[in-house]
């Protein structure tokens, strides 16, 4: 019973939040990794792309709510999500036409494109703030919980409870559908295969008659969808704030690089790894250890290894260790 209580406590405060956060990072990292694999640069504007997509979704959600539209227990934002994706897709295609296309035609080195994306990042950052402001915005509506602590306790009779919030469940389900759809697209469709071929050997792809402009367009549209989905899921689960999304860039890049940048499977694994590391290290584990260790041996302190304010240090540390010892990442990614 002691062990089960400890396990439930750990699941409630560490495993479930980390799973949801990991899924959000994974979808974000998939976008970064796709840009890296196909357009061959690290897109620093990805965090702000997520912010823009989420901001549009929030505005549309507000309109829908004002019109009295609702999804019942599900958040209305899910209805607004496709609009957010389309708007972000148009923004990215416009950015590509206005900015990246020039450098692509010059055959610019990846490092130049990275700095270009940094500029794009600042512009998108400003755009989003002008559009929706800098405040913290909560836009989740519908039912709050799939399962509450009380329901769980009544059902199992344990001392500790396990709550699953609707947004967490939605995150995991949406992430699973998104990832399955992406892998199906990349591995089974003609366009998806041509994108992988282009990423593998650009010259041979051109020789085979693959249209590079089309590959680039489709890539940006998929990246727009991934960024908006990741951003909306994160915003539903926590809250939306333009600056927070900018900061998300670090764990997202850490996730992509840890898994092996350019490798979609790696991005997913990396997302969950970073999320679990971050949540475990910054959560006080005293209660779990008290349950699990023999009586009297429970720790006196909180066993919180790092204050929550330092959570970005976790991503940084993992990033540094991976880049020092295994620069291609856990899965076979491309070299940076």
């Amino acid at each position: 019973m002691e062990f089960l209580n400890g396990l439930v406590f750990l699941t409630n405060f560490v495993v479930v939040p980390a799973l949801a956060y990991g899924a959000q990072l994974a979808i974000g990292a998939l976008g970064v990794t796709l840009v890296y694999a196909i357009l061959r640069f690290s897109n620093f504007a990805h965090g702000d792309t997520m912010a823009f997509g989420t901001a549009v979704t929030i505005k549309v959600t507000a309109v829908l709510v004002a019109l009295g539209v609702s999804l019942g227990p599900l958040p209305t934002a899910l209805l607004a999500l496709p609009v957010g994706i389309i708007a972000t897709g148009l923004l990215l295609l416009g950015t590509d036409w206005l900015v990246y296309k020039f450098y692509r035609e010059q055959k610019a080195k990846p490092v130049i494109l990275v700095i270009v994306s940094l500029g794009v990042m600042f512009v998108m950052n400003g755009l989003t703030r002008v559009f929706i402001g800098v405040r913290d915005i909560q836009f989740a509506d519908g039912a709050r919980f799939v399962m509450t602590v009380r329901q769980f306790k009544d059902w199992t009779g344990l001392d500790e409870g396990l709550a699953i919030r609707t947004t967490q469940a939605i995150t995991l389900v949406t992430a699973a559908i998104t990832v399955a759809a992406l892998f199906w697209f990349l591995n089974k469709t003609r366009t998806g295969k041509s994108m992988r071929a282009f990423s593998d050997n650009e010259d041979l792809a051109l020789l085979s008659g693959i249209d590079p402009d089309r590959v680039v367009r489709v890539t940006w549209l998929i990246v727009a969808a991934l960024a908006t989905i990741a951003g909306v899921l994160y915003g539903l689960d926590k809250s939306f704030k333009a600056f927070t999304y900018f900061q998300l860039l670090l764990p997202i890049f850490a996730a992509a690089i840890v898994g092996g940048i350019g490798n979609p499977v790696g991005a997913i694994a990396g997302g969950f790894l970073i999320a679990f590391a971050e949540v475990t290290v910054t959560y006080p584990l005293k209660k779990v250890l008290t349950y699990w260790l023999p009586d009297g041996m429970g720790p006196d302190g909180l066993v919180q290894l790092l204050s929550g304010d330092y959570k970005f240090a976790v991503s940084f540390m993992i990033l540094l260790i991976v880049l020092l010892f295994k620069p291609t990442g856990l899965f076979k990614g491309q070299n940076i």
Partner: protein
Amino acid sequence: MSESPYQDDRGNNDRSITKSGGGTAQPVKHGHSSPAPGTPFLIGEAMTGGYGKGPDILHCCTIAVEPGEIAVIVGPNGAGKSTAMKAMFGMLDVRSGRVMLDGEDITSLSPQQRVVKGMGFVPQTHNIFTSLTVEENLEMGAFIRRDDFRETMAQIYDLFPILKEKRLQPAGELSGGQRQQVAVGRALMTKPKVLMLDEPTAGVSPIVMDELFDRIIEVARTGIPILMVEQNARQALEIADKAYVLVQGANAHTGTGKELLADPEVRRSFLGG
């Protein structure tokens, strides 16, 4: 290389095969073909040209292939063998001379346009998609085809049975000889009118080399004319219906493979006696 401040430093450094303009060669830009009846099936006629603004490498060089033939280009290092083939494929712009395929002047077509016209080209290196499976490599080879290409794929599996066995494996995991078979198979997927191979046996062991030559003969028996650049002059001449010995970018000797093998001068100069 290029003076562009944005110059790229990745991928196959032979940018010329895609006419990007960032590399050393000046590939042909998109253009139009014109009819040229009464010429050999594929001929690069009196080609003169070189890389970029550099000196001429080819000097009035002529290479021709007739249907059902295996033609090989041999010669010492730096003789311009690969350059001659690249010129015929449009990877570098010839300064004079013309290239004709099946009664059409294709001198002003880009490499991609020539693929559509029926040229199959296998580069010497980076000639497969390593992270794609063997089957996906073949599918990408057929990218320009909108019809059902399963029959062609089945023919290629008959020609290269090992590929059928390994069709679900990433091509990058195969051995050198198997990778070359994937590369040739990829080029055959467009049902080309002529197949051009740039040193198909480079870097494989002698046993694998013999097997590759056998396979190339089998491909030729299906009726596709083959033009091939080869380092291993003796074996290449043995299977050649027509052979060109290039020296310093010009035709030195031309004849059937057997004639050249018997020619004392060719033997002394290139075959070691």
